[in-house]
């Protein structure tokens, strides 16, 4: 383990915050406080938290609709996140975006995108800006393994590879694209092979250990920052819940799920901390603090005013132009 235990405790706390936030989000959804499509990140937390820890504050991040984890990892206020799910004016997108479209410009989080493959070129675009202005920022872009078949993936890779843009593409391979296992969507089992065709560096590893994620992503981020071009990282992971709230996930067995839960990133990190001598009281403290934070977020969401008609009307185009 390369991280000191204080930092590891911090990362553990972040992961726990995401886990507990999403459990409450699922409850709010069941109680109809939240609606639409809700895609939970539970099981994949080490990736968002580890990658986030490998980035600078001024770097840019893009994610799919499965975006609560990275938003919180980057530092979005849990209240603003929960209020967005509740469709409130105080939400991170003022109630206009919902679960799939979180935005937090202050923390470099540029969404929250709903169309598979559509945001990869956007990430190449923010990376293009960084090179254009020479600002030294790096862009990290997350997507699922299901997205590696669509045109948007290949065109973004073509341009990023050709122009050696400072971007890190992270494929969170959670084994299923909605109900379809990788074996039925790709003749490859090692997706990192795809990078070669675009002259891009590649890495691939299992993503249940947050320290490993941090270290390996940091290497790719450095490569991008040093002007050596993009990296494609495939991280093996697993989602413990259905694709979205409406998916009963009948396509996988109970046994498979239980087997995968043994690699629960929270348990993995906790075991590391315990092995290093951490006391139970310390975990209790963290749990209590996270509990309070999540409860406050839910209360904030409940108490906030609904999204405003004026926001809807005023944000179609930038006001006051021509």
């Amino acid at each position: 383990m390369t991280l000191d235990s204080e930092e590891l405790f911090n990362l553990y706390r972040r992961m726990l915050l995401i886990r507990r936030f999403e459990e409450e989000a699922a409850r709010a959804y069941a109680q109809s406080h939240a609606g639409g499509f809700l895609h939970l990140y539970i099981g994949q937390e080490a990736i968002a938290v580890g990658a986030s820890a490998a980035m600078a504050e001024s770097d840019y991040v893009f994610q799919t609709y499965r975006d609560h984890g990275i938003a919180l990892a980057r530092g979005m206020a849990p209240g603003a996140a929960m209020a967005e799910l509740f469709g409130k004016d105080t939400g991170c997108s003022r109630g206009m975006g919902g679960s799939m479209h979180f935005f937090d410009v202050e923390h470099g989080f540029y969404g929250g995108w709903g169309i598979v493959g559509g945001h990869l070129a956007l990430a190449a675009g923010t990376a293009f800006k960084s090179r254009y202005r020479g600002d030294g920022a790096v862009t990290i872009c997350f997507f699922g393994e299901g997205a590696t078949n669509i045109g948007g993936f290949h065109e973004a890779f073509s341009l990023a590879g050709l122009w050696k843009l400072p971007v890190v593409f992270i494929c969170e391979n959670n084994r299923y694209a909605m109900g379809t296992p990788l074996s039925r969507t790709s003749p490859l089992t090692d997706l990192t092979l795809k990078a070669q065709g675009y002259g891009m560096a590649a890495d691939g590893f299992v993503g249940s250990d947050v320290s490993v994620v941090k270290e390996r992503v940091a290497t790719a981020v450095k490569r991008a920052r040093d002007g050596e071009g993009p990296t494609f990282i495939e991280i093996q992971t697993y989602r413990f819940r259905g694709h979205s709230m409406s998916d009963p996930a009948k396509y996988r067995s109970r046994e498979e799920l239980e087997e995968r839960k043994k690699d629960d990133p929270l348990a993995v990190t906790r075991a590391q901390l315990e092995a290093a001598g951490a006391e139970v009281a310390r975990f209790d403290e963290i749990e209590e603090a996270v509990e309070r934070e999540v409860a406050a977020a839910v209360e904030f969401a409940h108490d906030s005013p609904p999204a405003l008609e004026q926001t809807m009307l005023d944000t179609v185009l930038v006001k006051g132009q021509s």
Partner: protein
Amino acid sequence: MRIIRYREALREAMVEEMERDADVFLMGEEVGHYQGAYKVSEGLLERFGERRVIDTPIAEAGFAGVGVGAAMVGLRPIIEFMTWNFSFVAFDQIVSNAAKIHSMSGGAIRCPIVFRGPNGAAKQVAAQHSHTVEALYTHFPGLYVVAPSTPRDAKGLLKASIRDENPVIFLEGETLYGVKGEVADEGVDEVVPIGKGRVAREGDGCTVITWGRPYYTVMEAAERLAADGIELDVIDPRTLRPLDEELMLASVRKTNRCVVVHEHWPYGGPGAQIVDVIQREAFDYLDAPVLRVAGLDVPMPYASNLEDLVLPTVDRVVEAVRRVSYLGA
């Protein structure tokens, strides 16, 4: 007649056409093993096997193009978009290839293909997942655009679309899949012709032309207005390109008033096209300007209080009818 759901009606149409013609196949995301994202294709994989019920990776431009290519040489693909929102990444295949090949080849090549899937807003799925696409696809000569509102029309029109020699844009609705209605008995081959509308309710007070989800909003408004003595003549065009102009005009000539109700945005589209036809062909019959009740001209917001403002409501339909009838609110 039997009562079945809209989704079952679609499924029956596909089953019957696949039984009838071995060249008909279904392709799309999650149509097979998952039994369809909205369960329209439930049981089809078990019945027809993987050769004819084909799960694809997420690659809409790819499988739409595969469908067009296969249709050019004689197969009859049904291409399912999980929702029409995802057809935008396949737009080029539909509008540059499917819509053009017959004309561009001087009539040498045909493209008998159906693109189908749910159209319109569902519930709180926000800006990227709530498109109502008829205004886009009706723009292009070389495509038929069909939008059945009821189970009976869903079945009859899907059969007609599969049998047709041309590309058909077939617009369903996530919120319609559960709707129940009368459909011809099993074994009765009822085909609803493309291009023919239907009088859904007869009255002499005001013509209302509508399709898709707003059809049900209008039928509810009709009940409320009837209580006030205004009888609506509700016309469901069923096909949006080509429009059944005669049916709509006959109604307007009878009622002298018209409101068009649609979910798509107000700029252009079949809504505006219908108004154009009516003002041109029935100008002398009109007692009031033709009004439209449309989706508000904004990207769809997530919050349900705002979404409710965007979509056509019974209140907005009632208000528009009262306005063209010169009655106060």
